């Protein structure tokens, strides 16, 4: 009986330790080198409707920051549209974030390219301030846990292969 009590006490102690460790790990600040949590945002889409990033938790999200004045953005938009169609079933959401102040030109570009993915209008540049894209276009891959894992600029064929490998890795997680 005494042994059982001792075993029970030891088990309880271990469980408390495990829970405390779990709580500590859950609340510990992210260390250097760990992926940063993607800031949440809600934006209005050019085609109507509002989109909130946190509602896509559990999916991989590809965010492309672009503007109508950026020539290199168009090929990236087309590439992202194709990726979205290919990997939608595997849990990929693709969103464009338009940095134009007025939506007219971006809407025309999206229409000319025949894009069906949501184009979110960041008119106040609040999302751009939160994510700080260094150049346009900037593609961010956000994992299922809501962390920014990869960032790319304009992609050449080699960088595209790497991006595809990274994306497949995220979808497999």
């Amino acid at each position, binding site marked *: 009986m005494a042994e059982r009590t001792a075993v*029970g006490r030891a088990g*309880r102690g271990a469980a408390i330790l495990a*829970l405390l460790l779990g*709580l500590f790990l859950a609340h510990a600040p992210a260390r250097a080198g760990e992926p940063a949590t993607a800031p949440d945002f*809600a934006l209005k889409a050019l085609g109507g409707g509002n989109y909130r990033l946190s509602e896509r938790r559990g999916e991989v999200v590809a965010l492309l920051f672009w503007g109508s004045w950026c020539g290199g953005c168009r090929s990236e938009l087309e590439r992202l549209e194709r990726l979205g169609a290919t990997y939608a079933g595997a849990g990929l959401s693709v969103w464009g974030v338009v940095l134009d102040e007025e939506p007219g030109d971006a809407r025309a570009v999206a229409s000319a390219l025949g894009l069906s993915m949501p184009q979110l209008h960041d008119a106040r540049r609040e999302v751009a301030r939160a994510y700080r894209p260094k150049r346009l276009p900037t593609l961010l891959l956000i994992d299922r846990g809501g962390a920014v894992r990869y960032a790319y600029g304009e992609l050449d064929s080699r960088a595209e292969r790497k991006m595809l490998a990274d994306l497949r890795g995220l979808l497999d997680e």
Partner: protein
Amino acid sequence: MAIDSPGIAHAYLSGRDRGYRERQPARRPAAFWLAVAAACLLALGATAALAEEGAPPPDFQSLDGEIGALKQEVVDLNRDLFLLEEELLFPANTQVAVFVSMDVGTFFGLDSVQILVDGKEVTNYLYTQREVDALLRGGVHRVWLGNLKAGKHELTAFFTGVGPHGRDYRRGATLEIDKGVGAKYVELRISDRVQKLQPEFLVREWD
């Protein structure tokens, strides 16, 4: 070759002699094999006992129960911490919370709610379709939580969305609130006025 120093002995054994040892089959003492046999017997016995019982032993059951209880305690503790954090950040004597609720939504598709306190914007919240669906199912959303000092304040809410006949719709409602001691709760309620085929926006304080 005589070896005097332990350092030299280590270097010697870890070098040429080690290669020799690795080529030889390892010899285990008899006690080792006895221990392995005893462990196998014990494992077989334990497996048989478990198979007979068909359930984990009572110690494990009680441990599972205790872990479940501990998990619940952690959840409760987390909730208490959350409440404590809110009490610290938004003390009751200055706390003001604004909630949004929706009745049927036949005449109004909610897009966003903008709230101004004393003419200053404190929030502009965009509602996604999922959030609107939750409101239509009876959910209540706390759209703003802030601090206001005691006295009179003007709270204005602008509702933006799609009105009757699919037209863009924007309507404002204002409430004068008298912030005293204790938390103040304000509800922004969107309902349908069937007689006029128009949405209705009510701003009221909770008692």
